[in-house]
């Protein structure tokens, strides 16, 4: 019950009028910077952190939380409306969200993202408050072999993003895996595929690749289509708000996304994007409308967005309980804590409870503020689509370039951005799916490092990979994810077809 009263105290502080003003300013600033392509929440927070330095601890934390959520939401807005994800965790959102936006359903897509983020943030924050010590024990029990099994599971789910052809999907995935090899190998310190260019030593930046493939590739495709391009997108077709059926189709993905995202975010080597992959795959398998996936299924926005947000709250578990910053944003949050001279760690909950609970309460308030501020603005955001195409894409090119250069000021980075932009155009032109490239770049290095760590610790004994119950469970889930649909197709083809037919009435 102590937990509860502490949280209530934190909420009281965060609800004071001045605090609400700070939250509002934070959300506004965060959203404004976050909508720029190539600028994810981590960079947004880093850029705006100095703004918070002049405030007292409580005010600073609240504004910080606002900036963070604003940055995250800004990223999903551009993913959905313009197909230009600013960070790896909103790539999956772009898949279905942008299709929805093009079909005039940008309003519901933005709304389900915002409400889903809120629901997930709320549940995950409560989870953080009550389950943190348990979750962290579980997360620490994950050894390299278990992580490798998790990566295998994630690879299996990638197929959900393949689109129509498995061969083309695999081709894209392997392009991504090859790109993942570039740079200094963590285990040996040796450079691979860097061709003597120092900028390649750190590998290919995921956001640069994502912005290039999605934003630059998209702009080139539109330019190449010229007059043959489809008619202007209608910003709003039907209601700008979510309909009853949108709600009915969204709430389960929100909850499932939360359940998937939170524990993965809490793992020291999980990463927000893996939760979004798993959520997307789960929604595709469970959906009553699997045929809509790839053409704008609302579940494909609701689930991953919730997972993304829940995993952001999940990263606070190792940060607050162990002092482990497991994401770029968490690392910056750590810097935020340190400006008050405190070191996150196992003793933080005991020594400075008011700051910890203040932060948790601030996150809740900022989340709510985001909803209050952005839902009414949805109508305005979708008007972005009404901007004449040449202007819109000129703007996207400008901001993509600025965002990339801002994050990594180097001419080589710019050349990489343009080269992958051309690759993105080529892939679109010939119908190859884009997302598996980025997923390969993210998962490849993670899987490789975990596998090699596992084998190094066991001194080369491969049995270590299947020697823990966690790993075995994960492999079984992966096997089920591959085999079950096949079995169901063999046994119940008639049923499924009947169901599809009935859905079309």
């Amino acid at each position, binding site marked *: 019950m102590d937990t509860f009263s502490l949280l209530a105290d934190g909420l009281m502080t965060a609800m004071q009028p001045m605090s609400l003003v700070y939250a509002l300013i934070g959300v506004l600033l965060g959203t404004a910077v976050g909508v720029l392509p190539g600028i994810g929440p*981590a960079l947004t927070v880093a850029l705006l952190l100095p703004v918070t330095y002049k405030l007292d601890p409580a005010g600073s934390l609240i504004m910080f939380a606002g900036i963070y959520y604003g940055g995250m939401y800004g990223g999903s807005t551009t993913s959905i409306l313009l197909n230009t994800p600013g960070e790896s965790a909103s790539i999956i959102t772009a898949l279905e969200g942008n299709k929805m936006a093009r079909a005039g359903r940008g309003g519901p897509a933005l709304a389900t993202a915002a409400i889903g983020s809120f629901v997930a943030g709320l549940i995950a924050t409560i989870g953080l408050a009550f389950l943190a010590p348990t979750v962290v024990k579980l997360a620490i029990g994950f*050894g*390299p072999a278990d992580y490798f099994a998790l990566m295998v599971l994630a690879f299996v789910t990638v197929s959900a993003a393949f689109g129509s052809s498995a061969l083309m999907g695999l081709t894209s995935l392997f392009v991504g895996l090859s790109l993942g090899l570039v740079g200094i190998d963590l285990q040996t310190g040796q450079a691979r595929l860097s061709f003597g260019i120092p900028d390649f030593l750190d590998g290919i930046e995921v956001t640069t690749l994502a912005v290039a493939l999605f934003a630059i590739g998209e702009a080139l495709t539109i330019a190449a289509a010229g007059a043959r391009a489809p008619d202007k997108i209608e910003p709003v077709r039907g209601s700008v708000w979510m309909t009853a059926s949108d709600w009915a189709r969204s709430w389960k993905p929100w909850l499932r996304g939360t359940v998937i995202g939170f524990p993965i975010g809490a793992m*020291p080597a999980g990463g927000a994007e893996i939760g979004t992959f798993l959520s997307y795959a789960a929604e595709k398998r469970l959906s009553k409308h699997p045929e809509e996936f790839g053409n704008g299924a609302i579940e494909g926005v609701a689930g991953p967005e919730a997972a993304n947000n829940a995993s952001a709250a999940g990263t606070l578990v190792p940060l607050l309980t162990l002092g482990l910053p497991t994401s770029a944003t968490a690392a910056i949050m750590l*810097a935020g804590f340190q400006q008050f001279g405190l*070191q996150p760690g196992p003793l933080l909950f005991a020594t400075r409870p008011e700051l910890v609970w203040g932060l948790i309460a601030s996150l809740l308030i900022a989340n709510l503020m985001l909803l209050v501020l952005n839902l009414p603005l949805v109508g305005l955001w979708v008007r972005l689509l009404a901007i004449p195409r040449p202007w819109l894409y000129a703007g996207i090119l400008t901001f993509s370039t600025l965002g990339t250069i801002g994050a990594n000021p180097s001419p080589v980075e710019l050349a990489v951005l343009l080269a992958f932009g051309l690759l993105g155009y080529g892939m679109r032109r010939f119908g190859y799916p884009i997302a598996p490239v980025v997923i390969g770049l993210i998962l490849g290095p993670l899987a490789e490092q975990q596998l090699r760590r596992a084998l190094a*610790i066991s001194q080369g004994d491969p049995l270590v990979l299947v020697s823990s119950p966690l790993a075995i469970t994960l492999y079984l889930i992966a096997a089920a994810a591959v085999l079950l649909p096949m079995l169901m197709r063999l046994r119940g083809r008639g049923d499924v077809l009947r169901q599809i037919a009935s859905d079309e009435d």
Partner: protein
Amino acid sequence: MKKFTLGLIAAAAIAMPAVAFAADYKILAPAAPGGGWDQTARTIQSALQDEGISGSVQVMNVPGAGGTIGLAQFANQTKGDPTQLIVGGYVMVGAILTNNAPVTLKDVTPIARLTGESEAIVVPASSDIQTLDDLIAKLKADPGAVSWAGGSAGGTDHIAVGLIAKAAGVDPTRINYIAYSGGGEALAAILGAQVTAGISGWGEFESQVKAGTLRLLAVSGDKRIEGVDAPTLTEAGIDVVLQNWRMIAAAPGLTDEQKAAVTADIKKMAESPTWQKALADKGWADTYLDGDAFAAQLDKDIAATEGVLRDIGLVK
């Protein structure tokens, strides 16, 4: 006449900023926002400004490859400009060697060492290893069976393990070093007892050691950490002293006067209450060293590092 006046105004406009902002600095942090070098740069920024040593200080991040990318860019673009500074440290020394970087610390003007952190050698609380002697005994019996978790290969943590093995008479090429992308990720593996021992900066482990979940075996600095009951490596019989220090350097090609002026500003900053308070808040040790003493120490560190990286097999 009119033209001349205009010309004067234009000339004055160009000259003005140069005069007004003579004490302004631009600091390059060769790492992403949030990391140690970035925090060092931003702390210097606020100390210089708050103490009125400089009117306006800008920090720019150029991340990549252990700081060597930022270093190369800095050395190439700032020649002779006394307003340009770069933050760096021991990690850069190793990265320059392992990456075979074309630009080295010889291509900039090192000004002063500012902070330093001891490496800490820890085991999980559940481990049967009680002292450094126990760990060394295991290492001697079978080097491969002792897995060490730490930061990236060739970094400070890896170098420290190499030095320890060498001092203990174990072949450094046989150490089983498991690289993690940072001290934090390594910490999770150590807490989960996935590895035998862990090595990283003291700050990464401090709160865990105090909470009793990790056992501290030894620290790598030249003296014990205040209030912490663990020997230095030297005291424990392993003749290794290593500190992960951070420094500030200026542009290449400065005149002696320019170098002295920058050094004076940095010295004033390092002695200021703002800086001292920041050090205390962040738990950084003050290891201020400038001038010839710093240059000599730097040469010594580079030579020792090159030796151990050769022994581990990372530098050919």
